[in-house]
């Protein structure tokens, strides 16, 4: 794909700031021209300026990626493009839409009626929450029909178009249109929503975090589909996300948002390779990715500014290593930093020295697995032939012999040693959380045993074991995904943290406990500890809450902590910091982690840094497990390869390569868990599947010289698999069954 032409540049202008005048010249390449856009909310404590004088052009037929942390104003920018800022927000400035038929119009000064036809016919929008973007009491087709009707378009023609769109998005039009929203999975709903936004053939599609709630694999598949759609329907796509690697490989241009304005923009590859703004560089460094060197990942110091009280001058100066008096005094204009690029920084030429980052460092796979090769460490938890079933069938189902049992965990063996980190990765619904809960004794297994240091946990719970159940309960702790709901809102941080001490350390008196709590708070960077100790959960940020939850679990001196998506709710730039903290506390408290994540990059960071293992789960089975380096850099199981493909690399070359390769998967959606496929559970989606995979289920097996195990016949060179016929593609559409 070719980068659209941008402003003509004079050589003399290279280092000068781009004048406002130049922006004002209508650019024939631009479809949306944003000028001095402000969005203001009046709040009790002052005026909250969530977009601050933004001027920006969106080019025709491009895919523009807008990247920023939560609260940077990127969603406001999206809403303002449609003049759809929610009350009581007010948008000021200009958003000029260059209508191909009628000429330029200012979207912000359109009347209500004009807006009604402008939206969806010219510019359409897809929101983050596909789950809640459909009326739960209306079928999907009614949503399409009412939209077409409201805009007075020919029904049959548009509905035929809708069917084409759905088919393009790998959905079965008949089934999807006849369903209620709750009958579709999250990924299907999101794709149906994309089809709904394109039904009137808009010129521009604005997408606000459209994939944030989805699994990586689904995100990646949708991104690939978007690429196809864009070419097929001549779309301009504005894609807003917090996830830089996701959009980096696909977008033509990137714009980075910080503190309610764009700090840098330019062709995506140029921005990724050599970002000019110190913030972009720091952001690139802080994002967990699968291909960057671990030593290179660092969190950004400090916090994002408050919209009521944005720092004077350059809004990034309090966190910037290059900041000087000029940055404090003046707000920098865009400096031309290359072909079609701009960065709002006075010192952009020196940014590469100040903040150094590297992309796609070739991994050095250590010859000997580091700490993973334990053996001398005692096993804390061992799971033997574990199965957990959830029966969903009713009385009549049983009468008619209809099996509606979900095998959430279907025969898993796993051992976790002292001080080990095991990361479980898989799509939602693969049973990883159930497995985790079973491992710490919260869920009773249907078949198999859970042993804590050799003692059966459930026997102990029934009082039949030799070991006191309280000891086991104390040794196995959990940290949930949502820190907000796991802290009692009416208790201060100190009360929450002192509770486990009171229970398990009766030798400490209340002032001792306070000292312990304060020391710990300081240790996790919550300073001043005296102040933080007296706060209530609502006075803490998400990252701080998660730290308190982690500390609370650690104060029980557990042997194993189940961290269920413990960093997923945090902002991207905070994740590395949180995982770093988890690792340093692991050494302090001498504990093991069972880390559950749907994000390969997070799992890789935690497991690889601690020399731990990564386990890949699919439909209740552990399909591959082994040292993190091996799983990441040399995946064996085809499903691991799929997940690896779905985790986009940051390096533009690798990203382009990944983008050009076909997804190594035959179907996008997971099979129905109540009716799992026979034989190898993955054979319905596996590109390598052969007839034998339909009939027989592979066991975990290793190959020579490798520490990892994979449940795939391809690992065995003499297996009947190699003589078997490949499974012939039955149809190109999934969901048809």
């Amino acid at each position, binding site marked *: 794909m070719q980068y659209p032409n941008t402003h003509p540049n004079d050589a003399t202008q290279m280092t000068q700031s781009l004048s406002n005048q130049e922006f004002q010249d209508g650019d024939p390449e631009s479809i949306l021209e944003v000028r001095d856009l402000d969005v203001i909310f009046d709040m009790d404590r002052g005026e909250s300026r969530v977009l601050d004088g933004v001027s920006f052009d969106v080019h025709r037929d491009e895919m523009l990626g807008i990247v920023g942390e939560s609260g940077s104003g990127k969603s406001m920018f999206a809403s303002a493009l*449609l003049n*759809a800022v*929610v009350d009581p927000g007010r948008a000021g400035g200009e958003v000029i839409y260059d209508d191909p038929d009628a000429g330029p119009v200012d979207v912000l000064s359109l009347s209500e009626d004009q807006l*009604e*036809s402008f*939206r*969806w016919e010219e510019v359409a*929008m897809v*929101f983050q*929450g596909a789950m*809640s*973007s*459909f*009326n*739960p*009491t*209306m*079928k999907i087709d009614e949503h399409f029909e*009412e*939209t077409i009707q*409201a*805009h007075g378009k020919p029904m049959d023609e548009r509905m035929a178009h809708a069917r084409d769109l759905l088919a393009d998005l790998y959905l079965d039009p008949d089934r999807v249109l006849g369903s*209620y929203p*709750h009958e579709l999975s999250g990924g299907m709903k999101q794709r149906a929503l994309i089809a*709904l936004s394109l039904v009137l053939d808009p010129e521009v599609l604005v997408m606000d975090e459209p994939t944030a709630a989805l699994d990586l694999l689904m995100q990646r598949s949708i991104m690939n589909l978007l690429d196809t759609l864009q070419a097929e329907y001549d779309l301009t796509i504005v894609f807003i996300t917090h996830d830089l690697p996701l959009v980096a490989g696909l977008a033509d241009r990137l714009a980075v948002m910080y503190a309610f304005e764009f700090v840098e923009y330019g062709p995506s590859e140029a921005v990724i390779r050599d970002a000019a703004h110190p913030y972009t560089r720091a952001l690139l460094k802080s994002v967990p990715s699968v291909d960057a060197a671990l030593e290179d990942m660092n969190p950004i110091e400090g916090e994002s500014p408050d919209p009521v009280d944005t720092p004077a001058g350059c809004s990034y100066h309090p966190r910037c290593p290059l900041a000087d008096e000029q940055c404090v005094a003046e707000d920098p204009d865009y400096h031309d930093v290359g072909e079609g690029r701009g960065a709002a920084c006075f010192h952009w030429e020196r940014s590469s020295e100040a903040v150094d980052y590297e992309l796609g460092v070739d991994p050095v796979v250590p010859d000997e697995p580091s700490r993973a090769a334990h053996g001398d460490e005692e096993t804390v938890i061992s799971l033997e032939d574990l199965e957990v079933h*959830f029966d*969903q069938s*009713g*009385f*009549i*189902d049983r*009468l*008619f012999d209809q099996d509606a049992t*979900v095998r*959430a965990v279907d025969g898993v063996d796993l051992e976790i040693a002292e001080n080990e980190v095991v990361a479980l990765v898989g799509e939602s*619904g693969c049973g990883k959380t*159930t497995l985790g809960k079973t491992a710490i004794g919260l869920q009773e297994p249907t078949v198999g045993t859970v042993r804590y240091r050799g003692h059966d946990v459930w026997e102990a719970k029934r009082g039949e074991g030799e070991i006191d159940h309280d000891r086991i309960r104390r040794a196995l702790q959990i940290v949930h995904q949502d820190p907000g709901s796991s802290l009692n809102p009416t208790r201060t941080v100190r009360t929450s943290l002192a509770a486990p001490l009171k229970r398990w350390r009766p030798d400490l008196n209340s002032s001792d406990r306070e000292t312990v709590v304060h020391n710990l708070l300081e240790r996790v960077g919550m300073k001043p500890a005296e102040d933080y100790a007296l706060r209530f959960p609502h006075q803490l940020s998400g990252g701080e809450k998660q730290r308190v939850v982690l500390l609370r679990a650690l104060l029980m001196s557990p042997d194993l902590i189940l961290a269920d998506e413990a960093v997923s709710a945090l902002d991207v730039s905070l994740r590395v910091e949180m995982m770093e903290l988890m690792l340093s506390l692991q050494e302090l408290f001498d504990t093991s982690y069972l880390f559950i994540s749907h994000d390969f990059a997070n799992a890789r960071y935690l497991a690889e840094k601690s020399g731990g293992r990564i386990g890949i789960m699919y439909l209740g089975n552990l399909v591959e497990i082994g040292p993190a380096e091996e799983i990441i850099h040399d995946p064996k199981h085809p499903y691991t390869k799929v997940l690896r493909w779905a985790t986009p690399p940051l390096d533009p070359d690798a990203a382009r390569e990944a983008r050009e390769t076909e997804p190594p998967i035959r179907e996008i959606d997971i099979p129905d868990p109540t009716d799992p496929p026979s034989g190898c559970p993955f054979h319905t989606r596996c590109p390598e599947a052969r007839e034998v995979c339909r009939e027989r289920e592979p066991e975990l097996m290793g190959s020579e010289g490798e520490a990892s195990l994979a449940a795939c016949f391809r690992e065995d060179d003499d297996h009947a698999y190699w003589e078997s016929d490949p499974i012939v593609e039955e149809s190109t559409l999934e969901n048809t069954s």
Partner: protein
Amino acid sequence: MSEYLGRARKGVAAAFGFLAGFDYYWRKIGHAFVTLISVTTITFVLFRLMPGNPAQAMRAQFEAQLEGSGQAADPEILDQMVQVHTGFDPSQPIYMQYFEYVRDIVLYQDFGQSIQYGDPVFDILFRAMPWSVFISVYGLALGYSTNILLGAAMAYKEGSRFDGTMTVVATFLNSIPYYVGALLFLAFFAHDLGWFPSGGRYDTSIEAGLNPAFMASIVHHGALPIMSSFIVGFGGGALAMRGNSVRILGADYLRVARLRGIGSVRIATRYVARNAILPLYTQMMIGIAAVFSSSVVLEYIFTYPGVGWYTFDAINMRDYPLLMGSFLFFTIVTLVGILLAEFTYGIVDPRAGSGGENESY
């Protein structure tokens, strides 16, 4: 022949499959049936075990009568007389009495005979039932439509003076017991102003039939009871509807619908009202029971001879067979209301499905 058999077999299989598809409904009907049996049994046993139970009371009454007329009280004759009037034989063990009572109901729709009126209980209740249904259903329908409209309007004008005032009014009305309202209505509209009659179901001077004057008199007589049972269903519902609507107005799908250019009428009806009514729906169906039970007192206040009036009368007159019959009537009405709510909820809210289907794991 074999072809015929095959087709029959297929038909039976299809019928089974069809019925099995309604598993949820069968289960609910089963629950209702169990409840009905338990209620019947418990009321029957309670009446029988009460000190001075109906059979004994009646027996004593007949004994006194016979002695009064100078006859010797033959226990067998007394038993027979009691059996004729109540439908059961007091000399039999209680489980046999119960069995015969239920058998008579199921096979002959025989609920026994009213002591006071001498008519079969079934006939009395069957005649009174339409009148009770008339005032209850209208009161309920009126109450809930007002609730929904008022609640929606309050949500739409959230925070306005209208909203504030109506919240106070709804809370106030909600806290007035319906019988107090009924007495005030009676005193004010019937006695002071004389706009409405103070009792009766229709004007007896008009010829009964499908003529406008008779219809008008029914409405005229029913107005005050309906207004009073309206109060029963009013108030709390409006506040609940307001809360639901406010929540729906903030939903993402509403914002998306507005952006898609969907008309405001469609948004108000298909999006806001439809979704806000859902939680009210079950409450409304169960409310039917409250309205019917309130009719016991209401109909008595307005001297409106419906099922409620006969019930109250039966309590006063110790007319146990009639009382037992009307208890059964109330139980059945409540159960049918709940069943209706359960069965139709799947239509109103497609997510409800057949219960527990969307459980996450």
